């Protein structure tokens, strides 16, 4: 049964050093407050899997030295430019990047969701993405004739972590249109969600709310973290904090500036 944790930190115990951690794309509900809590705890050697891309979350974790490997289709700050700590780590050869393409990550999570060992995907053939992925295979389509097709192994993370608008006390989490969060939870052994608020009553009792609800059955722990995606957006709730992201991009351009950012916005508990 899911635990509704009193403290954010208590909800995060399943995220351990070396953990295979799945996180959503920048506009699907990123658990930024939880991410800052993990950095404060000093988490190490994460194997981060972005579904299918990441922005500030990955850059912060990489800059803070928490990540050994990242599997992703992209890490960038969008209109705020490149992700400076990601870029610095890669050009320094200090980070293992498993480059993918968005639909491959979606499909590989769906394979795990369905208990399938692999899933096929069109495209990819002739790309260097495929060339460098020795965990992917090309077979001749058994239904075709001389028709090569890529097979991707299922991705089964140990923990999925995201932020959503609300949960109820049974641990049901309302995710709305962000269906990839359901797939992420189904594919992962454990799922932790932070939410803006608790909903009174059971989300599954109302057919309209139920349609956008990830059942508590899949949830390990929930914690309330108001504005928990900040400075990233929470769809339909608040936009990205552009001024803050601009400040981040500027500070994180240097290691000293990044340290200043961590001090000010991560390690200072009042700011987090």
């Amino acid at each position, binding site marked *: 049964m899911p635990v509704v944790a009193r403290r954010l930190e208590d909800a995060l115990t399943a995220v351990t050093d070396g953990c295979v951690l799945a996180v959503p*794309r920048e506009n*699907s509900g990123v658990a930024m407050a939880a991410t800052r809590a993990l950095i404060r705890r000093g988490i190490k050697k994460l194997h981060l899997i972005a*579904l*299918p*891309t990441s922005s500030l979350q990955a850059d912060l974790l990489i800059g803070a030295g928490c990540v050994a490997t990242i599997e*992703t*289709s*992209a*890490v*960038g700050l*969008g*209109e705020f430019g*490149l*992700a400076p700590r*990601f*870029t610095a780590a*890669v*050009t*320094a*050869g200090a980070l293992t990047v498993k*480059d*993918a*393409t*968005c*639909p*491959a990550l*979606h*499909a590989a999570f769906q394979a795990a969701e369905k208990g399938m060992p692999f899933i096929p*995907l*069109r*495209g*990819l*053939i*002739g*790309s*260097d*993405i*495929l*060339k*460098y992925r020795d965990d992917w295979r090309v077979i001749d389509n058994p239904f075709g004739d*001389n*028709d*090569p*097709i890529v097979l991707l192994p299922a991705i089964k993370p140990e923990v999925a972590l995201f932020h959503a*608008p*609300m949960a109820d006390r049974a641990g049901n989490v*309302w995710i*709305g*249109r*962000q*269906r*990839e*969060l359901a*797939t992420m939870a189904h594919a992962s052994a454990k799922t932790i969600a932070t939410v803006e608020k608790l909903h009174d009553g059971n989300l599954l009792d109302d057919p309209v*709310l139920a349609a*956008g609800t990830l059942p508590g059955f899949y949830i390990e722990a929930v914690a309330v973290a108001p504005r928990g995606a900040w400075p990233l957006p929470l*769809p*339909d*709730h*608040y936009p990205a904090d552009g001024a803050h992201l601009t400040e981040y991009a500027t500070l994180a351009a240097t290691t000293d500036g990044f340290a200043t950012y961590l001090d000010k916005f991560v390690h200072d508990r009042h700011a987090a």
Partner: protein
Amino acid sequence: MLEFRDEELLASVIADMIGDVRHVAVGNASPIPATAALLARERGKGRPYVSLLQSRKHNFFTDGGRELFDCAGQGRIDVFFLSGGQIDGEGNINLVSVGDRAKPRMRFPGSFGSAYLYFVVPKVILFRTEHSRRTLVPRVDFVSAPGTSPPNVYRTGGPMALVTSLCVFAFDAARKRFRLQSVHPSHTVDEVVGNTGFDFDMVKDVPITPLPSADSLHLMRGVVANELAEVYPQFASRIFGVPSPAKRRQSGSP
């Protein structure tokens, strides 16, 4: 002669390329392609359907982040836009890195969906305003997605053209080469040749890129600009003078 901005010319050119299709999708941070798609829709009286992926309002997706790719896989996206940190003369695009992959000189964000969409969207329009030997290279350092594929590889899509700040290249998949289709007004073929790192085909008299019609400019500056302002307020303000909207009310939440 009509006055117009470079952005208006590019959007007009791209709108012409879109043609009579059902569905155009435009990725993030692409105001000029978005302008083109919306212009095409206005000119087509509501067709094509335009999805602006950056906008909650201007796309219909309710099945999560996978739906764009599933939709493309179903053959339901006719036109998409891609770019590249590097683009080469065979239409290969690089969104990953420059230099040795293990310890690259430059790292870009990553390939996003290109390695799939380039294969399954019939008309992919490459768009890169920076026209230089840095961006348009003889051979990309990393192939995020190849411009062409062997005949036995499943491929229903690929590049149709490359639009830059200087010119329009058409892509010939059979020849695996670009052809200089037109040069934008106030630019020259020599300028294009001098700033392009790859070889391309060219006829003797390269035409000037067709200018936006009065009707297209009228539409862009009117209805299109207003639609755009929802998604690209700064762009709509800078190019079309749409007043910056007041901070919009958050849409309803449960």
